[in-house]
């Protein structure tokens, strides 16, 4: 056989087999699958919980012949473990459950205070589920939150969840609230978990519905839930959560407003950019962590309610001081709350501390969770005001 024909024949054999291995046998037709976009966990009686699945209805989302109805179906089951709940849902909807498009896992605050790692562990072993699924703690229960979601501007609930979290990106949404990061933090000592904290905002009304209607109470993100290992110990309000994002460097596009230093009736809004030269150092002396935080920030003034012109150097200097004072006080309060009240290293200072140890054994002997609440902080903030346009 000619050499070229031989090479081409072998290439084709490998190509056919490789393409087959990529998934033809496992043909997953959209009609045969039920795409779960939200999973909820609510408390039930002893040793069991209510498992809630929000499943997409592709026909309604696409607006095809069968469209026009609800875009999701919400089902809940009382179960003692995730796998049997998943099986029950599959039997109920008559399709194979697929978690590859799951966007959120909602846990009620009551369950979160008891600990949810065992449940989430079972979930993570499922290869379909994405590592970046957001973990949400719902103050008023998971089912209530999932049922409250009625996207008005999007027919796809999955798209709605995507956009919901993107809309908070300029404030405090941080990667550490995602499933994989949550689980890593819940099982290790270097950093403690946080999750998105949701509550009902009674101030939101939709004009198409009467304001007294219970359904019109809309869930909004109210900050971050703070955990110690896998148990929720408290929460940060949106302002604290924003500072948390600033401190951990998870978000480099944060808006913070301060009182106008020249007229306290008004406020100044600035977009804060953390410079790469910002540095945090942790040293352990006599079993006590000493944490030096040196923040170098650029503040791009976005909006000034008063008529003050902060392009003028002397006024800019006053605004700089106002920001530095505000951030200094607010950061001290946040660090104090997490360290001494919650005793939870949500900032991941432990991860930085690992640099001080040569081996894992030495690091484990240091017992970071025990010494962290004795931490002492030195904060230095250097603000540089910029004004564009």
């Amino acid at each position: 056989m000619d050499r070229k024909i031989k090479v081409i024949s072998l290439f084709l054999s490998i190509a056919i087999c490789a393409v087959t291995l990529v998934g033809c046998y496992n043909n997953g037709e959209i009609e045969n699958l039920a795409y779960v976009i939200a999973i909820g966990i609510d408390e039930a009686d002893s040793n069991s919980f209510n498992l809630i699945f929000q499943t997409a209805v592709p026909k309604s989302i696409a607006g095809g012949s069968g469209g026009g109805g609800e875009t999701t179906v919400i089902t809940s089951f009382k179960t003692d473990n995730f796998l049997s709940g998943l099986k029950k849902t599959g039997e109920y909807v008559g399709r194979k459950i697929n978690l590859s498009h799951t966007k959120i896992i909602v846990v009620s605050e009551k369950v979160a205070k008891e600990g949810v790692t065992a449940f989430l562990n079972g979930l993570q072993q499922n290869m379909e589920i994405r590592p970046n699924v957001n973990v949400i703690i719902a103050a008023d229960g998971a089912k209530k939150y999932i049922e409250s979601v009625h996207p008005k501007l999007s027919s796809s609930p999955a798209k709605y969840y995507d956009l919901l979290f993107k809309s908070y990106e300029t404030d405090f949404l941080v990667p550490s609230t995602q499933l994989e990061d949550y689980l890593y933090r819940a099982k290790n000592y270097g950093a403690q978990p946080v999750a998105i904290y949701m509550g009902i905002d009674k101030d939101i009304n939709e004009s198409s519905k009467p304001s007294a209607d219970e359904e019109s109470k809309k869930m909004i993100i109210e900050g971050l839930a703070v955990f110690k290992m896998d148990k929720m110990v408290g929460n940060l309000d949106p302002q604290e959560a924003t500072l948390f994002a600033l401190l951990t460097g998870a978000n480099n596009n944060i808006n913070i407003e301060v009182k106008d230093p020249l007229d306290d009736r008004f406020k100044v809004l600035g977009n804060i950019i953390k410079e790469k030269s910002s540095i945090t150092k942790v040293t352990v002396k006599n079993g006590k962590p000493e944490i030096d935080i040196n923040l170098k920030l650029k503040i791009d003034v976005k909006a000034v309610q008063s008529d003050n012109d902060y392009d003028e150097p002397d006024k800019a200097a006053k605004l700089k001081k106002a920001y530095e004072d505000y951030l200094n006080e607010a950061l001290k309060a946040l660090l104090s709350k997490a360290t001494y009240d919650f005793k939870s290293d949500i900032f991941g200072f432990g991860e930085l501390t690992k640099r001080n140890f040569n081996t894992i054994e030495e690091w484990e002997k240091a017992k970071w969770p025990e010494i962290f609440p004795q931490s002492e902080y030195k904060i230095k903030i250097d603000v540089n005001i910029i004004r564009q346009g």
Partner: protein
Amino acid sequence: MKNKIEFGSWEATALMINLVFAQVMLIFPKDMVHFGGSAGWMISIIITLITLIYFTIVVKLYKNIGSLDLIDISASVGGRIFKVVVGLLITVFLTLVVSINLGAFAQTFKIISLDKSPLEYVGVLFLIGMLAAAYYGIEVVARINAFLVPIVIVGFILITLGAIPEFETNNLFPILGDGYASIAKGSILKLSVFSSIIILFFMVPFFKKQYLKKVGYSSIIISGLLLLWSTLSFILVFPYEIAIDKKVPIFQLARRIEIGNYLQRIESVFVLISAISAFLFLGVIFTFIIYIFSKTLDLKRSKPMILPMAVIVFSLALISKRLNIELIGSNALNLIWLTGMALPLVIIIMGAVKKVGVKDNGGVKNGQKN
């Protein structure tokens, strides 16, 4: 006598690189974390350096051996009986390598892509690739490697580059990970990743002897860099505490990549490149099993051996999986794999002592009989 089959140094280098690289697609980076923790990347450097030293010694010994392969050297050193013993030993060793890896690749694909498919079905698909490779012979397999391996490597590098935004330098600390002893243990046991270097000593007759150095050094260095980069990328994305639990490391790395709304779910790239890499790996080893077995027993035709050997390999692969023994990555198996480095060294030392190349003047038939 001139060899009937010939290919260049690039074909041989690409083939050797994939024999090492295929392990990256399985569990190599996870193994590194298992032994070294946050310092797992150091093991990749140490084993590459040890292999380079090993190869330097072998090249020096090969100086007077000429273009003989291990079977020819055995025949010259100890006669026909010794040749048959060595040949069968190498055949058994490579059969074990290909069976265990066939089972491992089938299992990996069942986890990441074909969860509903029976393991046998996935295994048969790989077997078809192996049969085709053995049918077309060593030259065709080498040439296929020459143009598919670069595609596989580029795909892998793209995945790891996409993961760079997820890199976290804190994951490299504590700098010595599990400590010196654990790093040393890992460096000895995981030398096994280079055990397929044994194939290089069967390729000598197929390319010009002066290329041995070039092929050996370049394939070891490039493979070493790929091992280092894969381990480093894996540790930089996953802290050692969770990295140790990740089933298919590079697949897990690919799952993390999300650049804007337009670059997501690129694990499908991993599935394709790892399928190609697996086919090439299994195809090469299986082709050489047939070649070595036929040459050992002086069989006039090698093709009739393909099907029976395939049945043996497939059965062993299924048995290893059905016994539910986690063989890949086990210490016992890592030690057995070291045969791939120890056996050639012993035979080459014997050949160098007896100056077999000088005596035979390189005149041994190396053509593959079909």
